[in-house]
């Protein structure tokens, strides 16, 4: 299996790669369009500011490629947010895979949310063999509201999307690569899709 991690300069690519290595899988880090197109599975990580990250995607010529991919694609954290059509963070236009808007948490919470939170209402093969209310590691200030694409929910002042799915596109707001054994199970599930 050819597994590619999109390396566009705004992702925690190494952490994701190491987590996959722990599962015994080698992944290629690349932003090369042909390499990405020919992969069996694609992981799209992201940390930092939405606008800066989207700029790097455009610079690498990936903004048209990613939404057209046919193989399973997993967006992680900011990667998932950039799969939406718009983010309030820097009023950023996203990839539009999910027709959703990314919003900022209200100030009744501490921002960013940092730490382990539970995910529930699980409904996807991405989350199979996972118990309800399992803990995952989150670090974010912006969130995707609940929608028809929500396959896992978390609560931080309000219920929001902890994970999304539409056809071959999957997204996790939390970091499966940093969420202990249960996070690694999600990566394993993705590899088995």
């Amino acid at each position, binding site marked *: 299996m050819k597994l590619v991690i999109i390396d566009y300069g705004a992702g*925690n690519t190494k952490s994701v790669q190491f987590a996959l290595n*722990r599962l015994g899988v080698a992944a290629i880090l690349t932003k090369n369009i042909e390499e990405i197109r020919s992969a069996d599975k694609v992981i799209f990580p992201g940390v*930092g500011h939405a606008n800066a990250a989207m700029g790097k995607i455009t610079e690498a010529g990936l903004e048209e490629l990613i939404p057209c991919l046919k193989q399973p694609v997993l967006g992680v954290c900011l990667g998932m947010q950039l799969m939406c059509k718009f983010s309030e963070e820097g009023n950023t236009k996203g990839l539009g895979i999910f027709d959703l808007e990314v919003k900022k948490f209200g100030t009744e919470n501490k*921002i960013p949310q940092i*730490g382990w939170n539970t995910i529930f209402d699980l409904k996807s093969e991405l989350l199979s063999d996972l118990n309800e209310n399992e803990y995952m*590691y989150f*670090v974010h*200030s912006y969130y995707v509201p609940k929608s028809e694409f929500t396959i896992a929910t978390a609560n931080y002042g309000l219920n929001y999307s902890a994970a999304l799915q539409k056809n071959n596109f999957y997204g996790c707001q939390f970091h499966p690569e940093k969420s202990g054994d249960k996070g690694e199970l999600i990566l394993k599930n993705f590899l088995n899709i």
Partner: protein
Amino acid sequence: MLTKRIIPCLDIKNGRTVKGINFLNLIDAGDPVELAKIYANEGADELVFLDISATEEKRKTLLDLVERVAQQVNIPFTVGGGISSVEDVELLLKSGADKVSINSSAVKNPDLINQLSDKFGSQCVVVAIDAKQIDGKWKVHLVGGKVATEMDLFDWAKEVEQRGAGEILFTSMDNDGTKNGFANEALAQLSNLVNIPIIASGGAGNTQHFIDCFKESNADATLAASVFHFKEIEINQLKNELRKNNISVRI
């Protein structure tokens, strides 16, 4: 529900742990990676590695260590100690650190906080503040607490938040090493003042101190070193006690 975090801190010198010698089953008790894996298995929510090496060639050793930790440990970790530039941070993050902690360098050059949060995102910028009370006022101290400043803890905390820090790691020097409990009053004040997570450090001696800290101070996380290294407190037992006291933790 977001849980409260328990964070062991490992002091690193020339790539080796300084404390942590009471783990008998370790092949190499001085290997930070071995210790980190044990803590992760015991239920630690994150780890902090504080580099206290004095030499200049430490950087390479530290980067090697960070990469080995990232390869083998599946929970987040922060690296601190001697970080003073954007380049330092870039190398650490590229080696696999999730967050960096800056302290004296932020006081000397506050703009570094803005630069780091602009470039890498506030989620990876922890500002560590060491302070102690002088004539009833909390004053910021530098260089591992050796150098006093005129800066007020709360003013500085507000400023680092505004400059883009994602978290504050507050060590009370009045409490550190005493094993008499955390500085809950000051922590509560900090927690009310800023809207970013607060990590409490300094003073952990027994389980009750952690319970009191979370109940009285509203801190988001507690950090400790020696009570974990010397196995005076085991993390999974600590978390069971916290849960019995209605404090939300990951078990």
